[in-house]
């Protein structure tokens, strides 16, 4: 935004009004978008201030429209927020109708300050900031409206609501929204809010990596809200209370869509499309649905019945499930076309373990993902002796904790960087160590040692960290002559997964990237073939549950556009979402003092009760604890309003 006429963003005021453009002061470091879908953004208003690039915008109308949106999100729990905003809007409407008086400006300011300083949660205290800015810097505009006594024509604006937690969630779930409902013990409604963007609340309530918690504003004050654990509360409540999930479905339109893969991405896409009225059939080669959530996540973290229950809800939305059906063997993309499917969504995941690339003298090296698959699909595994797992991600941790439960005497993880760089979820790493998993940091495998055809150990080399690499993590380098041996009877490799795309043939003409993933057009998820879409791990490489769900949702919107319009146009919702995604939502002007209160984490099974079996480790928060935890939420919603036309 170079041609900024006025900015109060982040409290730094730049005022170029009345100056020749060549005399304009640039706004340093203003990381805000310039354009919305090719249109210049003429004014921008949000929690952190206002930015104006066009004199023709009526800032008071902008402020009024913004505050109207704020009112919709105000929790209504405190007098100043609930009633104060009402009065402010009344006064602003009066001024905009040409009926204001000079004393109204003073009144408006008093109300704004009263809300800023004394509202109960972070939302209203921060949301009124740009309104106060208009009074501080655009007072003459107010006075002009008051003296002119003419009504201002109402303009329309683009609006999006987010929050620091919502924005880092790939699915942009309305986290403050469902926490607010939980706080008021309205479980069914909380679940409705969650299901709008996440069709697997019970699954993610247990196994989500929770990007949201890492970006929770409360984390800077005491400790982040236990968002993941809170999400599980209404999901479990629905099951234990035998409640019927409320599904709002559009009229069936008869158009058939095929989804390949019943993992999180495929399920999310199917659920959304089914609610939009499409007739969706999912094909999956396994005997039960769930994809990587089922095959990759051990049941001590995610019990099988939780997955089957959520799949059942998706089926209830009208999705048909064809299991034990492998694409490439039982059906092909072509045969699906011939069966009348108007669009296909490929979400086959990334189930192949990456090769370690070290000297293997024997078959004592097993792919960690394959072991997890086998265990999770209920196969018997003979476990004895020691095991070494190579890798530092969630699959490595899942392998280690599963091996412990299978009865291995000694479980060691070997990771080439240090604890700080370990990509696995911190909580999981801690739990693994509590259970007795040993982690050998800064070590890389060199070769597997055998004797008489049996694995006896693994030779490793010590590593040190150098400069950060492309991933931002410090690059490990071997320390010469630092080789050492770890004795073991089995080695598992868990250094990453890649998609198995062997089901695609030349005939399908689906383009593959150099990384071995399916190539898609980023805004529409369409592959090189019209009408064939793809998302999830087979496009991104191994990612998280919630990223898969998010792409499933977005792909569904895109497929819907394609089927309605015959072409892919980025949905407006996603245009605005991506625009807001480029704005840092953290930080606010004038931090409030918040009384510290540490979070209420869920209880865990004792170590002795859990290491010999696959019983779920984490317990659900009790109703009372959940409410206490929900009350800690500061509701850091941000309303972002753009003036375009």
């Amino acid at each position, binding site marked *: 935004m170079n041609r900024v006429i006025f900015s109060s963003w982040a409290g730094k005021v730049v005022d170029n009004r009345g100056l020749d453009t060549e005399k304009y002061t640039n706004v340093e470091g203003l990381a805000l978008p310039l354009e919305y879908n090719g249109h210049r953004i003429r004014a921008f208003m949000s929690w952190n201030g206002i930015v104006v690039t066009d004199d023709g915008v009526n800032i008071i109308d902008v402020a009024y429209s913004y505050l109207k949106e704020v009112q919709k999100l*105000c929790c209504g729990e405190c*007098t100043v927020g609930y009633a*104060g905003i009402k009065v402010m809007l009344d006064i602003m409407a009066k001024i905009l109708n040409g009926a204001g008086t000079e004393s109204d400006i003073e009144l408006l300011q008093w109300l704004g300050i009263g809300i800023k*300083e004394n509202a109960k949660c972070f939302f209203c205290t921060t949301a009124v900031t740009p309104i106060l800015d208009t009074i501080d810097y655009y007072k003459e505009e107010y006075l002009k409206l008051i003296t002119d006594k003419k009504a201002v024509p109402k303009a329309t604006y683009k609006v999006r609501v987010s929050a620091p937690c919502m924005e880092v969630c790939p699915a942009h779930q309305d986290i403050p929204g469902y926490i*607010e409902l939980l706080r008021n013990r309205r479980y069914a409604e909380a679940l409705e809010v969650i299901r709008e963007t996440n069709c697997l609340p019970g699954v993610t309530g247990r196994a989500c990596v929770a990007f949201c918690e890492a970006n929770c504003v409360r984390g800077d004050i005491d400790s982040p809200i236990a968002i993941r654990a809170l999400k599980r509360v209404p999901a479990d409540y629905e099951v234990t209370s035998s409640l019927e999930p409320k599904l709002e479905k559009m009229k069936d339109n008869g158009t058939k869509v095929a989804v390949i893969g019943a993992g999180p991405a495929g399920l999310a896409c199917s659920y959304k499309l089914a609610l939009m009225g499409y007739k969706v059939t999912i094909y999956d080669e396994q005997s039960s649905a769930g994809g990587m959530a089922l095959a990759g996540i051990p049941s001590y973290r995610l019990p099988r019945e939780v997955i089957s229950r959520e799949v059942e809800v998706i089926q209830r939305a009208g999705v048909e499930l064809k299991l034990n059906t492998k694409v490439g063997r039982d059906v092909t993309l072509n045969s699906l076309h011939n069966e009348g499917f108007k669009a296909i969504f490929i979400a086959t995941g990334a189930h192949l373990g990456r090769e370690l690339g070290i000297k293997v003298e024997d078959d004592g090296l097993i792919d960690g993902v394959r072991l997890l698959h086998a265990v999770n699909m209920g196969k018997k595994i003979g476990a004895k002796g020691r095991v070494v797992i190579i890798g530092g991600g969630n699959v490595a941790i899942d392998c280690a904790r599963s091996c412990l439960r299978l009865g291995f005497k000694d479980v060691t993880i070997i990771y080439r960087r240090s604890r700080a760089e370990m990509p696995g979820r911190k909580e999981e790493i801690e739990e693994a160590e509590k259970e007795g998993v040993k982690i050998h940091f800064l070590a890389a495998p060199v070769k597997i040692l055998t004797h008489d055809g049996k694995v006896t150990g693994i030779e490793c080399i010590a590593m040190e960290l150098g400069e950060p690499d492309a991933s931002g993590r410090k690059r490990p380098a071997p320390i010469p002559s630092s080789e050492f041996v770890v004795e073991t009877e089995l080695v598992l490799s868990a250094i990453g997964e890649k998609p198995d795309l062997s089901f695609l043939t030349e005939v399908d003409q689906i383009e593959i990237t150099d990384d071995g993933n399916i190539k898609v057009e980023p805004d529409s998820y369409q592959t090189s073939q019209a009408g064939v879409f793809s998302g999830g791990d087979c496009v991104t490489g191994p990612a998280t549950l919630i990223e898969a769900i998010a792409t499933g949702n977005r792909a569904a919107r895109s497929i819907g556009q394609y089927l309605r319009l015959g072409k892919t146009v980025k949905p407006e919702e996603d245009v605005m979402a991506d625009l807001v995604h480029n704005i840092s939502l953290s930080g606010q002007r004038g931090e409030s003092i918040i009384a510290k209160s540490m979070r209420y984490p869920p209880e865990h099974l004792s170590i002795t009760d859990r290491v010999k079996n696959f019983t779920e480790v984490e317990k659900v928060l009790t109703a009372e604890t959940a409410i206490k935890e929900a009350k800690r939420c500061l509701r850091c919603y941000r309303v972002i309003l753009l003036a375009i036309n």
Partner: protein
Amino acid sequence: MVKITIDNQIVEAEPSSTILDAANKVGIYIPTLCYHESLSPSGSCRLCVVEIATNGKSELTAACTYPVEEGLQVETNSEKIMKARKLVIELLLAQRPHSNRIQELARKLGIEKPSFTLAEKECILCGLCVRACHEIVGADAISFIAQGLNRDVDESFVKHSEIKCIGCDSCAYVCPTEAITVEDVGDTRTLTMPSGKIEFKLKKCKICGSYWAPEKQLEYIAKQSNVAPETFDVCLNCRD
């Protein structure tokens, strides 16, 4: 004990108590509306706003919810506080001008009438009724619904069949604005809420013949405390 300073006076407070508890102990007046000593505080009305200073920063906060901490500096009547409180009471008064409780608080703060108008409503959403129903009674008959302008106390049971309400009148007892009232006439108790009326049959005492409590409430107490329902055939006054 934790030592804090309230208006230049050093006050010793229980470690888990709030600024309001500490002030009440030494007789420093802080106005309250949504606070009740038997219920958990909620910080809804914002009338008990005080100014606290930590790390050189001074901010307003609600005395009823802010916990004491060693060395905390509290002011209860600075100009900033008075301005904030004046706004709160004007907002309350504009919504519920005829409430005795609100009028009394306004008088104490030197306010006669608000400087703006607001649509009048019976309920000011202080939440005392919801907390009493949950924390004291355990019936959970009422709760908050929606947000923003639609925020309300859900008393839909007044019209619908699912009634968890036992007619105990705790909500009416704590309501500061007479939005919920109760009246016993003959064998009937009528609970009047902003959304409508609901009637409860009262139990007749076997000895004195007076109608002394709602049958539903007595059934609830009998069940909760595991006593025979016949225990309540006789009213409290007629027992030995």
